[in-house]
Each structure stands twice: as structure tokens, then as C-alpha cells.
């Protein structure tokens, strides 16, 4: 196992541990972004705890703010704050609310959670950096359900118009939103076609594959005019087969059976992660 795989497993482990400690939460959509977070924070982004005042740092905005626990896990592993803080998720007075808050959590660039808004902010950051001739990258993850929001499409056409080629939009296409299957609620039809027609460079990759995600980012970085949209083919609950198969897995209050499966997944990941330090 390489460092990136260990980082991925550790993000997944600590995502589960946070939610399990709290007793409920957004398991489905937190787990489906573990791989992309691993690639971004483990390999791609120019970011570390010492760089938060560096105007040349790369920036990440979690537009689908309900994936907060996965981001917190990645930030803790990167050393932005101690692991113990992860157990305070959503507790009274916590610095880790279910949706990220830039004023509470070290390493969180932007407050998100009201869907559709984070992508506009990411676009604003990317445009500001471009106007200042700072060649940093801005990355954002939107949910497939989140793309119901009209504001996303305002942001998307604006980004293409301004040729923000250092903007990367990841779509966590896990096919489900709170009330059920995305195709049943408002069929998105084809994200690749949509982003392409809006003027993005676009591709679709297996969102559980670290290699495919990284290769797509490197390909996207060759763009000099178009912003990049990488559609991640993912599954809600990704990486935990029991949760992947669970029908209602957006926000889970585990039954006894769920609890058993979650604890088994934690044990398994702990065994995988126990011996070696992650070096990212």
C-alpha cells in the first residue's frame, strides 16, 4: 500500500469514527468524497497548516458542505488540528459543525452548507487570483443533488466566460440526494454534456479510483483557457459495502444492524491503518 492509499483509508476511518462517535450524520455523501479529498490533500494541492496566510496557496471549497466530516478527517491527518478534536463533531460549542465554518475550523477556507453557494465563492476566488496574476488553483466539490440549484449554473457559465482554467469543479455524482435517487427527483441527464456545453473541459472518472482522479486532474491542468469539471462516478457510502448497499444512506441514524456493520468497517480500517504513519 502506498502513502496515498493509506491517506485515503485514514480519511475513511476517521470519517466513520467521527460520525459513529456522534451517533448520526451524513455518512453517504461524506464517504463518497474520500478518494477525491485524498488525491487533493495528499498529492495535488499546495497547502499545509503553515501556509494559510500564503496568498499563493491552493484553495479548496467544499460546496457540498454536508460532506464536512470527510474534510475534517483530511485536515486532521494533514496536521491542521489534533485528532481528538474530531470527536467533538456537532457537540455543543464545537469547532466542527456539520457544515464547514471558516471561522471555527483551522484549514477550512470557506463557510458552506447552503447548497449552490460554495461554487460561486470558489469561482470568485479563482477570478480574484487570476486578476492578481497569482497562478494558484482553486478546487471545489459540488454534489450531484446540489446541481439542482440554479446558482450553480450561474457560477458555471460565469467561470467559463472568464476562462478560469485554474478552477477545478468536482461533481460527486453519487446518484442520490436526501429524498432519493437524483434521476427520480430531477433527472440531471448527463453532467459531462452539460458542463461541456457550458464551456468547461470535462471528463468522467471512477470516483473510487485514486489513479483515475489524479490522471484527470493532471490532464485538466493542461488547459489554458477552459475551467475543468471532473465528474466523479461515486456511490453514497463509498468504501463501506454495507453502507453502499443501504437504500436510505444520505443521513443515517444507525439501527443495531447498521451499528454493527459500521463498527466492523472501523475495525477493519483500523487494522489496515494501524502500523504505518501516513506521510502526505
Amino acid at each position, binding site marked *: 500500500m502506498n502513502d496515498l492509499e493509506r491517506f485515503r483509508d485514514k480519511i475513511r476511518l476517521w470519517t466513520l469514527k467521527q460520525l459513529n462517535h456522534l451517533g448520526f450524520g451524513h455518512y453517504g455523501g461524506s464517504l463518497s468524497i474520500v478518494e477525491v479529498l485524498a488525491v487533493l490533500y495528499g498529492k495535488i494541492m499546495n497547502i499545509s497548516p503553515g501556509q494559510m496566510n500564503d*496568498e499563493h496557496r491552493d*484553495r479548496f471549497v467544499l460546496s457540498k458542505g454536508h460532506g464536512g466530516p470527510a474534510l475534517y478527517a483530511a485536515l486532521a491527518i494533514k496536521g491542521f488540528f489534533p485528532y481528538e478534536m474530531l470527536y467533538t463533531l456537532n457537540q455543543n460549542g464545537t469547532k466542527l459543525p456539520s457544515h464547514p465554518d*471558516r*471561522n471555527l475550523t483551522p484549514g477550512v*477556507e*470557506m*463557510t458552506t*452548507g*447552503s447548497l*449552490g*453557494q*460554495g*461554487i*460561486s*465563492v*470558489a*469561482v*470568485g*476566488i*479563482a*477570478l*480574484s*487570483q487570476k*486578476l*492578481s496574476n497569482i497562478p494558484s488553483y482553486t478546487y471545489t466539490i459540488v454534489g450531484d443533488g446540489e446541481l439542482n440549484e*440554479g*446558482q450553480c449554473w*450561474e*457560477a458555471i*457559465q*460565469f467561470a467559463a*466566460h472568464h476562462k478560469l482554467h485554474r478552477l477545478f469543479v468536482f461533481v460527486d455524482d453519487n446518484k442520490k440526494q436526501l429524498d432519493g435517487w437524483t434521476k427520480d427527483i430531477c433527472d440531471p441527464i448527463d453532467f459531462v454534456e452539460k458542463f461541456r456545453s457550458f464551456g468547461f473541459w470535462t471528463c468522467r472518472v471512477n470516483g473510487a479510483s485514486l489513479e483515475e482522479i489524479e490522471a484527470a486532474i493532471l490532464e485538466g491542468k493542461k488547459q489554458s483557457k477552459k475551467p475543468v469539471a471532473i465528474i466523479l462516478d461515486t456511490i453514497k457510502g463509498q468504501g463501506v459495502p454495507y453502507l453502499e448497499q443501504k437504500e436510505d444512506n444520505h443521513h443515517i441514524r444507525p439501527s443495531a444492524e447498521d451499528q454493527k456493520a459500521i463498527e466492523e468497517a472501523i475495525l477493519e480500517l483500523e487494522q489496515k491503518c494501524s502500523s504505518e504513519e501516513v506521510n502526505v
Partner: protein
Amino acid sequence: MSTTPLQFGLDEKEMRQVYAETILELAQNDPSVIALEADLMSSISTNKIQPLIPNQIINCGIMEAHMMGVAAGFSLTGKIPFVHTFAQFATRRAFDQLFVSCAYARLNVKIIGSDAGVTAEHNGGTHMAFEDLGLMRLIPNATVYEASDSTMFKALLKQIYGEYGIHYIRTIRKKAKRLYSSSEQFPKGKGKLLRDGKDVAIVASGIMVEEALKASDLLANKGIEAMVIDMYSIKPIDQNLLIYAAEKTGFIITAENHNVIGGLGSAVAETLMETYPVSMYRIGVREQFGQVGKTDYLKEFYGLTAEHIVKAVMDKLEETE
């Protein structure tokens, strides 16, 4: 308390010209100043300055919600965004974006809402905001102003440029009645005592300041001495001046080109209720939407004239006799 000397006449410049010139001055002195627009540049005259500062004016297109997010992104990267659109788009339309992405995220965004209330004229009810001050006042720690003349507007723009946080200035676009000399200052949290008086205090903002002054002339003819206050800083509000007015006159009339709920009248009532409760009446829009029409017609329709203020004063005084 001393009164502010007034300099009457019609403003030489339209408020939109003042906006464009002030933004240009700020932007030329500070590369971090960015003006954001949503396809209303020619309405507020920033199209005329764009060629001079092309990298500091962004026309976002008709995307008010997105524009608030872009403003947040600029603030996150150390820029100072000034966001302009019509008042109802800045507040009613993009309220959650303004609330969450700008205010809740504790960012530095200046918002200018133009075409205050009835001055939206022929754009009618869809474009006529009687609610913007109320919405903005609800945002924790936001500063809320209504500009009454060009001197004030320019001074307020420069003031909010230098202060971190969420600031809202409501303005008309065309010429205002000139009230202040160009050296006048307009500190946050203060009001201007324009006339002193002992029988009633008229607390007004924006275009209603002119009506309040007219009303005080009409009342003087009847032997009634009316105090007139320009309460341009609606949040925070000048509590000391309000208590002075309440103590001296025992009767406050507020006058606003806005719904009586949420704006100046509410702010004055809330402040005095907790500190120095006296009789009050709020002149403003009551349970009505906007509509098309000339400003004079609309002021008459919604009861926003000097005569309406005088009538409210006389009714109250007769009631107490």
C-alpha cells in the same frame, strides 16, 4: 444640542454619478477595490469608469445570487468588493447568499442598493423595495445606512471602504435635494439634528428628510415647533439623539420611504421602547406592495409627503388636547 447648518439647493450631480466617481477614486488609489455589477452598470453610471479600471469592475451578468458569492471570493483573497444592484435584488433576491456567503462567513462586503422605494418609479412593484432596510437590519453586525444627499453618499462610501464587515447603503439614483456642505462628516451610529424644536420630533431618512423639513415649515406656520433629524445611520442608530428628542418633545414621528415594519420606524420604536418610551407614529408604507408611477404620485399614494406628516402631527396633538 447644536443643529447642523444646511446648504440647500438641488444637488449638482446625480447620485449614480457620485457612486461612479467615488468608486473610481477609491479604485485608483487602492488596487484591492473591486466593483461588482449585475447588468445594471449603465443604470448606475459605472459603465463610464470601466475603461479606466477594467480589472476592477466585473459585470457579473444577471446573476445577483452568484454575484454575492463572487464578492465573498474576492473578500477571501483580500480584496474589497463593492456590490451594486437595485435594492430589491441586493436584498430580497439574494438574501441567503448575502446572509450565508458574506455575513455569516464574516467577510468584508459593501452593498449598495439603488432605486430606493418609490424612486424605482416605472419599474414598478417587482423592482420597488420597501423591505430592504428591514432585511439588512436583521443581519447580525451589519451596518445599514440610507443616504439623503450626494455629500453624504460620497462620505459614506469612503467610510465603509475603510471598515471591515457587511455594510449596506440605500440610495436613489437621480438628483437628491442638496442638504449638506461638502465638508460635513457622517459618523456611523449618529444622526443629524437639522432643526431643534419642542413640540414634536420628525425622524426621517433618505428622500423623506426633505419632506420632514417641509413639514416643519408648515407646522411652524401653525405655531408648532418641530425638531427634524436625518437618521442616516439606521443601524447602529443614534440612541442618545433619540432620547434627547423623546425627552424634549414627548412625541416622535418617523418618516421613511419603506415599509413601517423593519426599517427606520421599527428601529426608532425598538430603541425608544427600551430606553425612553413616548408617543410615536410611523409614516411609511403600510401593508402595500409597490407599483408603477412617478415619484410624486407614489409619495402621495403611500402617504409619504410633508402634508401626511403634518396631518399625523395635528391628529396626535388634537387627540392629546
